[in-house]
């Protein structure tokens, strides 16, 4: 808890967590190279929200920007966590699917496009029900198709984190970058408390929650690849490095047996907190 902080660096940094989705995308791409696709003035907002008396956002909470990373063509897809919890509806999800599929098509035609996903999402948008669920499945398929050609790099910065079906999408990515503020999990703590009772999980206990599903823990057990500071420059650098190190990736989702064996070997009754799990799980030799 009392880790030494480089104060000068801490004060000089530009928080990535505090940026909007549009600002985040710009922070990742080479300066001056970004061009937004299907932006707010195209007015592709959700028709379903208005029917339910909810104010829509004109980009439906997803910002897609084409540009360059280290001079190479790239597409950054950023989810706006402040709008409806970054939830995935029909339009929001379809924008992600189209961007990923266009990147795949580029690769099939011999043109490289580097894909970056900036997750900030509670998962499916309940107001759009099956349309949201279906589009998340499409996002997952699109990631699998694209990662055969190029590393699909993802960032979870916080504070929303990445939950539900979109946590599975994050798990499919080739490289997952997280901050200490990030959270990654299937069910959110509030949902677990509501469904399984407070003895299972107390959602208000922030230290416990972050010790279980926080970025530091996820990186320590090998479910995320890079733990970075909440610093826009650091994050952009780590994304660049992920594309530069063109080493072949064995995706976590291609190591099903390894993870099943690990799960089977752990006595869950002994896991009282994140630190115990780290000890039992090891450092994540999977990667």
């Amino acid at each position: 808890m009392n880790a030494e902080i480089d104060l000068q660096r801490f004060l000089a940094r530009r928080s990535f967590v505090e940026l909007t989705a549009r600002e985040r995308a710009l922070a990742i791409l080479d300066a001056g190279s970004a061009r937004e696709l299907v932006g707010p003035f195209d007015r592709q907002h959700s028709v379903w929200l208005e029917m339910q008396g909810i104010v829509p956002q004109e980009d439906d909470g997803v910002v897609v920007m084409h540009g360059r990373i280290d001079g190479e063509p790239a597409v950054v897809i950023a989810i706006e966590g402040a709008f409806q919890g970054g939830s995935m509806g029909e339009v929001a999800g379809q924008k992600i699917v189209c961007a990923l599929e266009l990147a795949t098509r580029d690769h099939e035609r011999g043109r490289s496009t580097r894909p970056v996903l900036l997750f900030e999402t509670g998962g499916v948008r309940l107001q759009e029900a099956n349309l949201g669920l279906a589009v998340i499945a499409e996002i997952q398929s699109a990631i699998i198709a694209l990662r055969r050609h190029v590393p699909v790099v993802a960032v979870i910065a916080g504070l929303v984190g990445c939950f539900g079906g979109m946590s599975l999408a994050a798990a499919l990515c080739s490289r997952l970058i997280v901050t200490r503020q990030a959270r990654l999990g299937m069910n959110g703590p509030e949902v677990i408390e509501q469904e399984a009772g407070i003895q299972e999980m107390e959602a208000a206990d922030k230290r416990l929650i972050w010790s279980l599903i926080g970025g530091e823990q996820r990186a320590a057990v090998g479910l995320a690849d890079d733990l970075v500071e909440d610093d826009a420059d650091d994050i952009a650098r780590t994304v660049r490095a992920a594309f530069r190190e063109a080493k072949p990736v064995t995706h976590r989702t291609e190591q099903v047996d390894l993870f099943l064996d690990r799960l089977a070997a752990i006595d869950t009754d002994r896991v009282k907190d994140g630190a115990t799990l780290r000890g039992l799980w090891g450092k994540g030799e999977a990667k």
Partner: protein
Amino acid sequence: MEVFDFTYPGDTVIDGRVHVGVVGSGDLEILLEPSPDDKTHVRIRTSVEGYGAVWQSVLDRFFSRYHGKVAIEINDFGATPGMVSLRLQQAVEENGK
């Protein structure tokens, strides 16, 4: 959700378009672009109902000082009048850059 439309006389032609803000708690997004006709148009979708008179006051005040012929679309998620004024100011400033 409630929808309001306001019209003001405009006298300065502007070009370019600007997007500011987020439809997040206590915030709003503003889409500002040139007006299709000779007037200034404001369309508001707001999550908070019953505040038509407050919107009227905030906009009356703003357009007593700004006379661009603009079409403005606002998607509001419970922004305070102060926040609305600041976002409007930000939108016209960025348009002037």
